[in-house]
């Protein structure tokens, strides 16, 4: 615009170049002193800044244009901010000859994944549609979400629908017989969405074979090592007599704590990952620690007592504990399968149940009024870490023989007390409360419209576990951080007492060295005793001689 820059008063071009007049005009307008002042002022305003290249005249013009366009309220109070905004916008356009690359936000990628959920998989014909309309293991997540929403529990509708579609995808990939949305566990970096699943019978063999192979491999290694050690036994330092407590085997897949298989994903749209089955050692350890989940399944769990596994195992253990403690149903919905002769078996009662075809739902008032109208259908976990008691000291004959030969008798309790837990389908009224708080809080979803109210139960032991019942429908769900409630602060387990290295007795006990007086006294005492003994012998000899003489 002003390529020649402002002309100083002494320069020949000064006053000639006014906007609207060309510099070649011979006529110089006759400025009155006021006009001259105006021109000076304007020229000053047009002066470009040495740092930014802007000039005040344009800036003010832009600012006023913006204010007049937008007409903000109380513009005078925010005029500095408007000025800053205008400068910011100006700066970008003028100085940058580079164009910003269109930013690919991570949100766009996530949206892509989301969109993939909504697309129908290729190759689905009409035939498959008909099959699906029949018996499908897919649960009606939206219906469950509706009932829970009546109590204010649940995720946003969008998220529920995404989970619905993600479950559908899971079912199409795995051979699943029943499926349920178990809940959501929050974590530090990411959250977990959990599906509870039961396979068709006979579909689960592959996993167990792999685990057995690993165990046998370990045993083989152990034997080789023993042989080497035997050769060097003479030079070895004394071996410790520590025997670790026997390992309690995990329950078979499909029974007890491993009755259901759990799949997790971080967000709907991401692939589902199967969680490994849970072992009793993991459950026992999980009871003693309290850690937040990070959201990555391979994260290590750093704790004391050291947790045998990584976050996937800890997650599975907590899911098992929560399911055992909070899976409830209205009384009568499930009944025991009709089998006689089960009651005498070891390990207590029945562990299978089936749906009761003659279930008559109770009214909401009854469901809310008393806790005996609800029963646990999740089998409770014993202190051992299993649902069915396992006696680790029942050994086969071979093992007993080996032990007698190799080791001395150690002090072991030969009989552990068999642990008995509450039987399946016990009513909730038997649950212990915590201090003076009942284990469950029951309420109806609404007091204004009791005809259509839903009975809601919240667990106080596992905050975040909810159950609803309305007519013949019921369900359980969990939204939370995955920890049990304890009114006392968590005290981590202390390290066990230091093991006694050796039995203490007089041979190893330190005593003071005897002093000189004591040694002399001892010597004198010994001499006296010796002299006394000699006298006695002489007397005896004399007596004997006398006796002989007598004869």
């Amino acid at each position, binding site marked *: 615009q002003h390529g020649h820059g402002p002309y100083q008063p002494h320069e020949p071009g000064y006053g000639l170049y006014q906007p609207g007049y060309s510099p070649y005009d011979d006529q110089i307008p006759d400025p009155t002193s006021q006009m001259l002042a105006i021109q000076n002022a304007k020229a000053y305003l047009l002066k470009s800044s040495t740092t930014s290249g802007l000039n005040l005249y344009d800036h003010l013009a832009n600012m006023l244009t913006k204010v007049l366009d937008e007409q*903000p309220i109380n513009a005078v109070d*925010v005029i500095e*901010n408007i000025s800053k*905004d205008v400068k910011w916008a100006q700066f970008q356009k003028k100085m940058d000859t580079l164009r910003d690359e269109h930013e690919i*936000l*991570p*949100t766009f990628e*996530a*949206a892509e*994944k*989301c969109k993939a959920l909504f697309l129908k998989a290729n190759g689905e014909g009409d035939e498959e549609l008909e099959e699906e309309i029949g018996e499908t293991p897919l649960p009606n997540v939206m219906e469950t979400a509706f009932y829970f*929403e*009546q*109590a*204010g*529990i*649940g*995720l*946003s*509708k*969008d*998220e529920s629908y995404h989970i619905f579609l993600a479950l559908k995808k899971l079912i199409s990939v795995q051979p699943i017989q029943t499926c349920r949305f178990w*809940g*959501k566990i*929050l*974590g*530090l*970096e*990411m*959250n977990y969405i959990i599906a509870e699943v039961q396979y068709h019978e006979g579909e689960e063999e592959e996993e167990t074979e792999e685990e057995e192979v690993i165990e046998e491999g370990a045993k083989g290694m152990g034997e080789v090592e023993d042989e080497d050690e035997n050769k060097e036994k003479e030079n070895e330092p004394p071996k410790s007599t520590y025997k670790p407590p026997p390992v309690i085997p995990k329950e078979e897949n499909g029974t007890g704590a491993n009755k259901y298989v759990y799949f997790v994903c971080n*967000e709907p749209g991401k692939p589902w990952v199967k969680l490994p089955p849970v072992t009793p050692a993991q459950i026992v350890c999980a009871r003693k620690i*309290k*850690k*937040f989940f990070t959201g990555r399944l391979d994260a290590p769990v750093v704790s004391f007592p050291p947790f045998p596994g990584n976050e996937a195992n800890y997650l599975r253990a907590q899911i098992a504990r929560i399911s055992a403690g909070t899976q409830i149903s209205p009384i009568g919905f499930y009944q025991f399968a009709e089998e006689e002769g089960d009651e005498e078996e070891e390990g207590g009662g029945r562990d299978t149940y089936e749906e009761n075809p003659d279930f008559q739902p109770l009214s909401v008032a009854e469901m809310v009024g008393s806790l005996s109208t609800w029963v646990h259908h999740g089998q409770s976990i014993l202190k051992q870490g299993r649902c069915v008691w396992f006696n680790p000291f029942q050994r086969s004959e071979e093992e007993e023989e080996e032990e007698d030969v190799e080791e001395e008798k150690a002090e072991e309790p030969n009989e552990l007390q068999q642990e008995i837990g509450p039987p399946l389908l016990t009513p909730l009224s038997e649950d212990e409360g915590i*201090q003076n*708080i*009942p284990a469950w*809080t029951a309420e109806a*979803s*609404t*007091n*204004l419209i009791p005809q259509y109210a839903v009975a809601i139960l*919240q667990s*106080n032991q596992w*905050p*975040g576990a909810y159950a609803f019942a309305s007519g013949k429908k019921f369900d359980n769900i969990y*939204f*939370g*951080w995955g*920890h049990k409630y304890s*009114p*006392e*602060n*968590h005290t*981590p387990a202390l390290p066990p007492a230091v093991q006694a290295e050796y039995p203490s007795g007089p041979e190893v006990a330190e005593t003071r060295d005897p002093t000189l007086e004591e040694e002399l006294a001892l010597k004198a005492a010994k001499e006296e005793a010796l002299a006394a003994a000699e006298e006695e012998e002489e007397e005896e000899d004399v007596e004997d001689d006398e006796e002989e003489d007598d004869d």
Partner: protein
Amino acid sequence: MEAASLPAALELAAGGGAGLSPEKRAVLGASLLLLQRDYRFERVWFWGCIQGVRGVYYIAEGLGPDRAAPRSRLYSWNCVEWSLLPPATEEMVARAEQLKGRFQGDPSFEYEYAEINAEDAERLFEDGKEPMIKEESRLVATIEQIDRAVGIIPRGAFVKTPLGSVRENRNFEGLSLTEAKKLSSYFHFTEPVNLKNKTLLEKADLDPSTDFLDSLEHDIPQGSWTVQLEKGGTVVVLRSLLWLGLTFYHVPMTKQYGYVYFGTGEKNLDLPFML
């Protein structure tokens, strides 16, 4: 969260599974407006709810012209009728800190001090006060503690005027996505504690109109906040691990933000073990 944007806000903060039933949502829309009229608040915030064993307290806060002034707090059982709570005093907060366990759900319930030193007991008896504390005081103290410890706002959302009062910043357009993931972009909306301890170099970078509060960066213990992107990365959700149940949401590059508390009102003292 702002009463005006309650439905949308609840959808954004529902990632933790806690929310309000349609009935409560509907009634809050009306009753919070009436609160604003009756008490002449300029802004009404729905603070959240504290779950007692036998009932739930719904809490609302009202703000006057100076947003940083002590707020009036009200509670209700059914979101229809609200009662004003007394303002919190330091003494109330100190006494309530010793209480453990759930709220009972009855404001006149009296807690007994379970374990109390001989000195404290003597001191209390000298003052002429009884060693009992009502649940109402505990409620007030807990809300005050939560607000002080974990009530947060994004940086730049509020400005301090030259006269000293604090108002919303009308030029606040939201944090950018990169800024929203950093803890230093969020402030505690309460009297600053650490601000004076900053070095002069740090203070030189601060803008006194927007940086007059403590940021979350130096919270103890470190890691007591989780920052997550939800809904495919469109919402930034911060959850406090010290007070489990406090959820803060913000949609980057928009003016939507707020925090709400759905929980039992107990501090998570096991936090250092759990991290």
